[in-house]
């Protein structure tokens, strides 16, 4: 049974607002009294996902859902998709442009960092359609 469900739209290549959804989600979880360690892991993964939506997609959304056992964060986008997920998951591999790197991102750490911080991580992608990432964070470990 879900006690909270909220969606946060994320625009492609908008570096001015990039991170605002993650900041809102962090504030929301703090207000709900979620364990600081869980908030920290989720905030890192959420920000990575949001930056990926900004950099790599044609636009998407983050969906936060909470039940008494866990918090789930789903990142869904419309975009080019990922041809080789195993390669994309390897640290250091990145297809980000030089402009993105100038902003301090695109080191090829994002997907692996999301997986590291989440208790469960699942990614699906279709080339030419988009990518869906589901991350679960257990509240009571």
């Amino acid at each position, binding site marked *: 049974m879900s006690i909270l469900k909220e969606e946060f739209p994320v625009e492609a290549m908008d*570096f*001015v607002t*990039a*991170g605002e959804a*993650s*900041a809102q989600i*962090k504030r929301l979880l703090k207000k709900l009294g979620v364990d600081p360690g869980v908030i*920290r892991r989720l*905030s*890192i993964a*959420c*920000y*990575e996902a949001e930056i990926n939506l900004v950099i790599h997609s044609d636009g998407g959304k983050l969906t936060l859902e909470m039940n008494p056992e866990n918090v789930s964060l789903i990142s869904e986008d419309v975009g080019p998709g990922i041809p080789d997920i195993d390669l994309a998951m390897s*640290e250091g591999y990145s297809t980000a442009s030089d402009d993105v*790197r100038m*902003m*301090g*991102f*695109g*080191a*090829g*750490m*994002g997907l*692996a*960092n999301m997986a590291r911080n989440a208790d469960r991580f699942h990614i699906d992608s279709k080339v030419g359609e988009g990518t869906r990432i589901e991350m679960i964070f257990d509240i009571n470990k």
Partner: protein
Amino acid sequence: MTLKRICEILSAQPLSDNFDEDLEVQCACSSDMMSDVLAFPKEHMVLLTGLVNPQVMRTCDMLDIRAVVFTRGKLPSAEALEMANENGINVMGTHLTLFIASGKLYEGGLYNGTKG
């Protein structure tokens, strides 16, 4: 190490409002790549960087980093500074390069950096 001591070692100036010179940090991370900072976070960390865009503050907010040193005389944008003030992030500026500033803090006793 307190932020006051960091300012002394780096000849750094506080740039943010309500600067907490007594705040203690236990480790440091030096990088212009926020992707790397996000991948190797530690608690009670000071970030040294030459990147001055608002995403630096957003990264600090996500990682609960309460202290940032901008190196090589670079100043954060007004937007970045406003974000720092809103989120209680203490901002300093030094004319030293990222490499020299990192070395001086290490020499001063701030050893612990990223995981590994």
